């Protein structure tokens, strides 16, 4: 005799903006009558900061800042103790999406050390003989169109040569090559693809792969000290094998949802992004060119 508890918000894409009302229904599906001691629904939004293993020593000093930051929290009693008849029961609800005082609603972001998450938590309390039922559903918060800055095109031309490389131990072993190209903008809207062009003008050794690496740079900390970690989000191959020389290969990458958000900088943490253009040679040597990018919602 399974009882099925479900939360359905009205919007199919589950995207909400500050000030909007989150409406939806709690769906109870059961084969028989359900007795319960009340159903409650909680909306909460938190920023979770996590310690990277290698930084744990430094972090112990200011342990406070690792505590989750609550952005929004709100509880509703949806139903008082009673009975729900067998079959399908829908209980509608509605929350206004407003931040707690002195807080702002950041966009949903799933990272490694920083997580910004908004949840609806529905709990059905039952007597001591039966387990309480819990259902959690995530919804997504995005910035409103008006309140934040828009992406301004900021094109960048680049040219990678052996001479332009840093961090090289043995200059003599580097083959001769010239890779040029341009990025249409380093300031991008997260919903638009990241675009540009890349031309391998010439290259002494065969190329194995040309890749775009999207990297998140997460900074946790406060005035006293901080930890900064760069991790890969995704790696997109744009050139496979020995790409033809002199042909403009498009740079094209779609920013993954949830894993990217507009660049964020607060007093406690920062979320920034970078793109690496990686050229891997047949002998597995690789060269990387790094481009910090600024992401915006619009």
């Amino acid at each position: 005799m399974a009882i099925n508890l479900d939360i359905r918000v009205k919007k199919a894409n589950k995207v909400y903006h500050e000030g909007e009302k989150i409406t939806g229904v709690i769906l109870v599906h059961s084969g028989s009558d359900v007795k319960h001691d009340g159903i409650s629904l909680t909306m909460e939004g938190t920023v979770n900061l996590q310690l990277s293993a290698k930084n744990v020593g430094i972090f112990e000093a200011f342990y406070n800042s690792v505590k989750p930051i609550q952005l929004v929290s709100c509880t509703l009693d949806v139903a008082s103790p009673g009975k729900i008849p067998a079959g399908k029961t829908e209980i509608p609800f509605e929350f206004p999406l407003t931040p707690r005082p002195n807080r702002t609603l950041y966009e949903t972001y799933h990272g490694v050390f920083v997580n910004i998450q908004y949840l609806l938590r529905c709990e059905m309390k039952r007597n001591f003989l039966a387990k309480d039922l819990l259902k959690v559903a995530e919804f997504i918060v995005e910035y409103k169109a008006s309140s934040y800055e828009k992406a301004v095109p900021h094109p960048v031309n680049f040219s990678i040569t052996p001479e332009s490389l840093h961090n090289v131990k043995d200059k003599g072993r580097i083959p001769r090559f010239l890779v040029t190209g341009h990025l249409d903008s380093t300031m991008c809207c997260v919903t638009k693809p990241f675009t540009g062009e890349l031309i391998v003008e010439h290259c002494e050794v065969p190329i194995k792969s040309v890749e775009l690496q999207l990297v998140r740079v997460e900074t946790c900390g406060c005035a006293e000290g901080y930890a900064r970690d760069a991790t890969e989000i995704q790696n997109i191959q744009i050139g496979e094998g020995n790409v033809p020389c002199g042909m403009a290969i498009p740079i094209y990458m779609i920013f993954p949802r949830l894993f990217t958000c507009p660049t964020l900088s607060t007093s406690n943490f920062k979320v920034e992004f970078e793109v690496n253009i990686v050229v891997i040679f047949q002998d597995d040597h690789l060269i990387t060119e790094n481009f910090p990018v600024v992401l915006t919602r619009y």
Partner: protein
Amino acid sequence: MSTSKPLSLCEWSCQIYDYPANRQKRQLSWEEVSDHPLKPLVVTVIESRVTRRTLGGSTTSSTGSSTPTPTLESLAAALEGTDPLTHFARQEMDPLSKMAADMWEPVPTDQRKSKDALLDDVIEPWATRKSAILNKFTTSEKLSIVTSFLSGGEKVVVKAQSSVVDKVKNRLEQLDDFEEGSVRQMMDLTQQEYMHRIEQLNQELVQAWNHDQRVKALKIAIQCSKLLVDTSVIQFYPSKFVLITDILDIFGKLVYDRLRTKAEYYIPGSKTPTSLPESFTPDMVPESAKETCRNWFYKIASIRELVPRLYVEMAILKSYSFLTSSEFSQALLRLTRMIRGIGDPLVAVYAHCYLCRVGMAVTTGDREYIKENFYDFVASYNQLFSPSVRAELNRQKVDLSTYLTLYTPALDWILQGVAANAPEKLLVEILTRCKEKCNNSALLLNTIMAAFKPSYIAARALQFIEMVSACDEEGFPQYLLFRTLGLCLALADPPAEHRLQILNDVWRVVSRLTDAGHYVSCAEVWIQFAVRHFSSREVNTFLGDIIRHMTPERAYEHHYPQLQAVVNKVLTHTRDFESLFTMDKFLPLLDLFQKESIKVEVCKSIMDAFTHNNVQQEPTNDPVIINALMFICRVMHDSVNALTVDDEKRQIGNLISGFVKKVDYGRDFEQQLSFYVEARSAFPNLDSVHAQLVQSVNRLSVETRRIVKGHHTRKTAAFVRACAAYCYITIPSITSVQTRLELYLLSGEVALLNQCLGQVDACLKAALSLVPGLPRTIEVDGKQRSSEPYLISYLCHFLSTLLVVPDSPEQGVLYLTRGLLNVLQQYAWEPTSNARCVVYLHVLDMLSAAAQETYLYHIEKVDSNDILYGSDPKFISEINKMCSVLLEEILSHLKYLNTNEQFQKQASLAMDLFARVVIRGDLKEPSMTTLAINLWNLAHRHGHIDPKLSCVEKARTLEYLKKKSMQPGGNLYADLVKKLHMQTS
């Protein structure tokens, strides 16, 4: 009425008619009708059904009481509602006028659609190319697959894709991750095994999809497309492409269909959701479906590797139509550019090909992107000759020209999309582009010639020849270029003034080809050009050249199909066989076919062309043609042996017979006959040919008689006798008894017509002596049937001939008829069958006809028995005696039937005999009348004749007899009727 009245034996006596007096016109009364006799009834059935359906909504096939008759109903049901005649009647228009109307009325589809259909006609569908590719690009090398979805094979350790080890498993990386440790590499697969594995993957994908494991399905799709990166067995790559894109197509269709059916669409004004209609616009798509669709594209955009990402996105490209209607051209252009990132030119060109293929399915009109794809290939053309490619080819031991031919399927497809309905200037544009970018690449020239309208190519044939000749030796094989050009010119004619130069220019190069295979594949195509545009002199030279090239080292042995194609092309384009055989190289060409079966095939096609293609042509008497064809026929004939299947024999027989029929020397009958003699000795093994020869000779004989108008001179009489002799000695060599019977009778008749009485006797006697040998069963329409009905009808025919055959003075009266009766007596009939008696009844008919003073029919200039005997009483009594014997036989058979309790047969036989007695017999004899009455009783005694039928029959018979009694001298009949009435009442 006594039950056991013995049938008294009695003497028969024939009634003598006065034919001229009775020969008055009898006619049934006519009646005017206003309707087709079948139509009204059936139509009522239909109408009753239709009304039922509309009223009750019931579609059962049972019909109510309104149905006129049950039989009709079942008939109508068997014909699925309508019989064809009514069907036409019910259509408002007959098909022809409907077609005409359709032509005039503009088809109510939008312009775009019809234009699209037009394009589809121009572009050869992928499906037809698919099988060609699979057949052409095969390998005997071992293949390998890396996948996690098939069992078997060794495990491969796959290292983690990302260096960051996180406790949160990144969803983005899931797609690239294989299920841990389950990746297996299968090595050493043969091509068949490989194809089987791919088919397994295909099933796995569909199954996963049906079990709602969509991520797994996507993973399979990704893994499949990953296989396309691997060019390790390069000559198999095109086939691999075909196999894998098939899977991707299925995947794309699954995604699209699910999105469409899952989308809850509310038809305006309706509350219940349905799935989207087939043709929808993005604004009809609900938000939830769009979200699902976006999820697919986001998911795919995060695939790490380039080639799988491109292929999977191309596979589900059609699903963009849920999001926006305008994005296709953008997406296509973007994908086109992204393909530039693929380094391996072969992988890239096939990716271009797949994109064009998918693109054609989703867009209408816009074909700019296809051109873009082509130019991208042109731009990266030098990549084909890059050191890394050469190194790889060396490693795989594949030569460059083989490698380049791997490109043709993809390039052909791409350029075909560009060239479909393209204006001529595009050809010029592309040609110049190719010239500057890739220095007259042979590969591209080949594709261009194959893709553009043959008429464009034909108009520039000389220019092309120049370019082709300029192509360097290395790389794409030049002979293929000439072949492709030849194919173009076969479809479109170049300007007349260039033709000779074209052939000369091409042949100067082609005839220098040393490889016989290359040479013949050009010759096979160009022969058509030569045959169509030039006289037999040039064709002859051409054929001579072919022979010269194919003879060294018995090269022809390996190229029979091509040589066969050469012969076929010569045949289809030659209207004039004389010129064909006057070419001194044609028959030597045939000599190249040294394998018996192939040679026979070729001969067959020649004969086929001769008999069928030239139906309207006059029969031939040209000794050259006849000799050549005789030779060819003999080759075919000699191939027949004991192991030859019947169908083959039949075909060859028909072809040779066709040839025999075509030969006609006109008035030179002697020559004609000697041709038949020659043919007989040349083709001794084929029944059908012999039968044809006998028929032809008989025809010749009748023709002779027609010309002399029946008055044979000594010479013609001798000739027709020779003809008869020919037939008489030819027939025994035929194996089929049935055919022999027929032909003997026919030849006998023809001999009779030509007043060769001795030959008539011989033929008929031979036929009679054959009758016992007739098999009990014969094949009719492929089924074994009893030969009895055939024999009866044959004997009837025989009897009708016998009537006019005069008795030979050396033999007794009616000795042939007696002979026939003897044969019948000895023939092993089925014991219970009536057949023998049925024949006896017919003999009775014939004999009573023979007793008349003048016979009903005669052969001109042949005196039949009526003249010979002049109704001599001895002759008549002889006939009557014979009749009596027959009568006795029949009566004893009736008795036999009685003892065996075969009453039904007995009754019908009795009734038949009754009719003979009444009509043929002389009722003045009281014994005949008694016999008739007894038979009448016997027929009705056991009531075995169907009561209803018997009533009708009885009534009709009585009616007939009454009518007879009205006629002068009919009082005999009146008596009989009275007596019969007494019996029945």
